């Protein structure tokens, strides 16, 4: 009790939460379930992932079928979220587009994270020249503000969904390289890593078997938080017209086309944007919850 109330209270709370020989996974789940917003986020992610898989098969209308009798129709019982300038059903297009939109962001995140992890591990583990080289490259990439790096990449290699994916992935690499490097430097000082090295583990083995698991918490938390950002970046690029073509059903592209009809058909902008917003929110809520349960220090 040598501290203030807050500390005293938290100390007793910790005491109260002392594990009763529970597995770490169960402890984690128990702690996570206490955060209602995070649970809601998680459930929404599961829901949207299911839609991404089965979405194209359960659309009420063919997402690409023109219906000239119902052009720019507002939301109604027939067309839940209205129709676009070609009479295509917006709800069906958004549902069908889940796969492409989420797939783009997820793939970009995974590729970018994986590359970032490899660079971060190498930089943190070997140190010295390799480290400073990788970190200087990251500095250079960080000098391009926000998604401008992704925009520049798309400007060079041309528009299209794949290129957006590449742009967002590249833009993800440096932040993960930095995070993982930081985590490695922290883990490297731990005794068990020194022990592994002292008994003659190879560099690669030490790195992947002993160091990498230690960085997992930072990785999982940041990866989740990154997905929301990747969805936003990808949809921004799509919105600017660098992404999907007019025929492709993709959230950002649907919204981008719809903006021309804002005054007469606001639903064209409202619904795709709402879906993007809710999906990003779900990932952010989930990521926040993960961070608070896994690693309170990152708060």
């Amino acid at each position, binding site marked *: *009790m*040598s501290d203030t*109330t807050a500390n005293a209270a938290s100390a*007793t709370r910790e005491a109260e939460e002392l594990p009763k020989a529970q597995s770490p996974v169960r402890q984690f789940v128990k702690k996570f379930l206490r955060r209602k917003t995070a649970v809601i986020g998680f459930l929404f992610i599961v829901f949207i992932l299911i839609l991404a898989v089965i979405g194209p098969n359960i659309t009420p209308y063919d997402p690409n079928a023109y219906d000239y009798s119902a052009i720019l129709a507002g939301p109604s019982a027939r067309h839940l979220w209205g129709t676009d300038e070609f009479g295509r059903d917006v709800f069906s297009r958004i549902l069908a587009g889940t796969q492409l939109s989420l797939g783009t962001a997820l793939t970009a995140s995974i590729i970018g994270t994986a590359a970032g992890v490899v660079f971060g591990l190498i930089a943190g583990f070997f140190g010295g020249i390799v480290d400073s080289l990788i970190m200087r490259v990251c500095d250079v990439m960080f000098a391009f503000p926000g998604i401008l790096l992704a925009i520049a990449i798309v400007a060079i290699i041309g528009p299209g969904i794949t290129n957006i994916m590449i742009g967002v992935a590249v833009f993800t690499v440096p932040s993960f390289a930095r995070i993982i490097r930081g985590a490695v430097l922290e883990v490297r000082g731990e005794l068990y890593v020194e022990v592994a090295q002292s008994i003659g583990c190879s560099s690669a083995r030490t790195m992947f078997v002993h160091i990498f698991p230690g960085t997992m918490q930072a990785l999982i938390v940041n990866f989740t938080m990154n997905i929301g950002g990747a969805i936003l970046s990808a949809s921004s690029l799509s919105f600017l017209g660098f992404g999907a073509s007019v025929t492709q059903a993709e959230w950002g592209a649907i919204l981008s086309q719809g903006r021309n009809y804002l005054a007469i058909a606001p639903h064209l902008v409202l619904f795709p944007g709402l879906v993007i917003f809710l999906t990003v929110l779900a990932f952010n809520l989930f990521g926040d919850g993960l961070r608070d349960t896994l690693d309170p220090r990152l708060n």
Partner: protein
Amino acid sequence: MSETLLEVKDLRTQFKRGKKDWITAVNGVSFNVNAGEIVGLVGESGCGKSVTSLSVMRLHNERLTKISGSIKFGGKEVLDLTTSEMQSMRGNEMSMIFQEPMSALDPIMRIEDQLAEAISLHNSNMSKAEIHERCVNSLKLVGIPEPEMTLRNYPHELSGGMCQRVMIAMAMSCEPKLLIADEPTTALDVTIQAQILALMEDIRNRRNTGILLITHDLGVVAETCSRVIVMYAGNIVEEAPVKELFANPQHPYTEGLIASVPRLGKRLHRLPSIPGSVPDLSVMPEGCRFAPRCKYAQDSCKQKLPELQTVAEGHRCACPFYRNAREGAQQ
């Protein structure tokens, strides 16, 4: 007998842990501190000694804390003061220093600004030059050789001992009647510890300040205090003048505590220790809280919390089987 500065009666401090869930950290504590007296408050960590001192200063987060009982300071009831009355008392009439001097100072503020802050707050009519002079004098009081230079420093440029001197200077800058020192030497090197303790005694002698010294170190108590209060699990278990306590401890807990201090010239196979550990605040045993660890415990101990009783002049003990009584029964 000198004037009573601080009179704590039946102090209970409870912390909010959940909805309608309160835990009691201090459970009915009463003691006095007189002017010019150094009173030691000892006990293991978690016994409620820091909580007691922070309660006296009303430094707990009031939203999460319930304090009952009475704390009279200079005849005024501290618990009845308004927030602003309390603020004008803190740092002015009673002040406090803490365990970690390095982190207790604001890292991005010059020492002078931190000192001047308290002085100007409680002396609104002082000019800038007067405040500066007071800052210099405060540092001189705590034996800092080059006060002008130290005033321009940031905390990270000073050593731990220097920081604690600055803390004491800050606490003393408004000439308080009472100084509460919460483990002031725990984080410091042994040689620095002695210097800081000597400094506190010196200040007491010069200013007739009453000091409540909180520590878990019996050596510190023996060196500096005139009276000692021993706390265990939120209660006072024994109170006595320092010589009396060391020569003639009455409570089984105090006995164990003193026996566990290594002493020069005494060869022991093994240092005695008290078996078990301090009970968790949320699962306090019924009756005497030391009973589960006490070798003299009887069934009756586990039913009712024993009250402090006077066992000799100025010596109180909260155990019906205090040493004199036990020895008397044996004879």
